[in-house]
């Protein structure tokens, strides 16, 4: 087969570097994790990952995260839209605030949220009589996950909205499209890949989140315990292979999420491929 000629210079070198770098940074630790998991034997692995208390945590870590990611998809999109399209006093401040969860130590976020929603605190004291329980309940986990995942959607989508040119919207209007049709058929489709990226990143972040959740969740077994907490508990009990087994399970699940995300992006990008 003839050697393929690449338009970009330094193709080989760049690919070489990328592969080496990714291997060192990502693949090596993952291999170690798999090795550690395997050293515990199949039975121990299966016992650990199917323990009913652990299985209940999957529902929280993967299920509630998913709901949080979808909510972030909707509201992150709206925020990105508003930041990109409207100027109002305090916009910059609000934008900076959106980014805060990126930089904030997660424990700080956890403490802040707990301080807000605990039954005896700020908001909590008014919600409690209404029968709304947030802290030490699944709703608290959801709120923490929304909080930390929100900026991913905004940051992924906003630059793409800013890049949209107004003329296609104007063209659609002149062709008789109402505002809703313009959004549905003209504005949204080119934004989908970025929106998917944002949702997947926010999902991934929430699945792996530990610090901001463990305070507000109250870690109630079978209710608000998350998988990373299980891993932490195993480590505390010197059950390293058990921790690795759970880590491995999360790894597989995350891989599936990332792959699905990639497929969605490819699908959303299909018209660009042809360029």
């Amino acid at each position, binding site marked *: 087969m003839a050697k393929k000629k690449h338009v970009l210079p330094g193709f080989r070198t760049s690919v070489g570097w990328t592969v080496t770098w990714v291997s060192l940074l990502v693949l090596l630790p993952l291999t170690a994790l798999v090795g550690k998991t395997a050293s515990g034997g199949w039975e121990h692995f299966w016992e650990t990952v199917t323990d009913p208390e652990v299985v209940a945590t999957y529902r929280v870590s993967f299920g509630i995260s998913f709901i949080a990611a979808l909510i972030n998809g909707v509201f992150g999109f709206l925020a990105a839209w508003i930041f990109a399209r409207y100027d109002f006093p305090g916009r910059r401040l609000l934008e900076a605030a959106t980014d805060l969860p990126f930089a904030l130590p997660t424990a700080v976020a956890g403490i802040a949220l707990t301080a807000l929603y605990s039954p005896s605190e700020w908001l909590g004291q008014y919600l409690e009589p209404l029968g709304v329980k947030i802290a030490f309940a699944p709703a608290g986990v959801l709120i923490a996950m929304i909080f930390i995942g929100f900026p991913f959607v905004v940051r992924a989508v906003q630059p793409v909205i800013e890049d949209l*040119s107004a*003329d*296609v919207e*104007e*063209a*659609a*209007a*002149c*062709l*008789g*499209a*109402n505002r809703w*049709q313009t959004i549905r*058929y*003209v504005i949204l*489709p*080119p934004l989908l890949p970025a929106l998917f990226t944002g949702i997947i990143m926010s999902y991934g972040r929430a699945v792996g989140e530990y610090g901001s959740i463990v305070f507000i969740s109250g870690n109630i077994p079978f209710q608000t315990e998350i998988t990373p907490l299980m891993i932490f508990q195993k480590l505390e009990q010197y059950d390293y292979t058990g921790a690795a087994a759970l880590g491995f399970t999360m790894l597989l699940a995350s891989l599936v999420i990332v792959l699905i995300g990639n497929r969605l992006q490819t699908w959303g990008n299909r*018209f*660009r491929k*042809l*360029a």
Partner: protein
Amino acid sequence: MSIEITSLTKSFGAFPAVNDVSLKIETGEMVAFLGPSGSGKTTLLRLIAGLEFADKGEIFFNGENVTMKNANERKAGFVFQSYALFNHMTIFENIAFGLHVAPRAKRLTKEKIRERVLSLLETIQLSGLENRFPVQLSGGQRQRIAFARALAVEPKVLLLDEPFGALDAKVRRELRTWLGEFHERTRLTSLFVTHDQEEAFEVADRVVIFDKGSVQKIGTPLEIRSGTSNTFVRDFLGLDI
């Protein structure tokens, strides 16, 4: 469709981009807006399409006051200099867009839409490209697609903002001739903005010359070239050289 504009003014900040313009365009006319950069040609065209709203003055389509109507109610066929094609849709979907978003009661059947799109592709001499995406076409081809897309909904007026501005001289001349013939055939009321005098004088029935947001001169190409005492117009057209 006839278009009447009365004392139309539009300012951006304190600066009047269109300043007290009155015009009457008859049904079937092809009118060119000519003038230096920044003289307000695009703004006037956008005001007519409903993409901008006037500070003062009124716009009538066939005697009906449309000043307060939105672009999607006025449905002027607008062709942008940048083409403004929908990059995520095929050529077919681009041209069919206006037909797809029509109110249910007025919407054509799938077969009728297909028929119309294919016949438009033939009109613009691009048959067979319906499954391509805009990025796979040349500039001149894209411009013609934009044109077909605007025509698909059978607009009563065609507004063209420097439709051939981004094309090379040869393609420009070809499309200009084609546009002239198209107008001869359909007599669709058309307004087009241009920098190019030759283009304006060759294709248009009447030419409107703008400067600083105001109309300097209106007339047939012949009237304008023979005898005007307006110094701006003489200067702009290079009549004294």
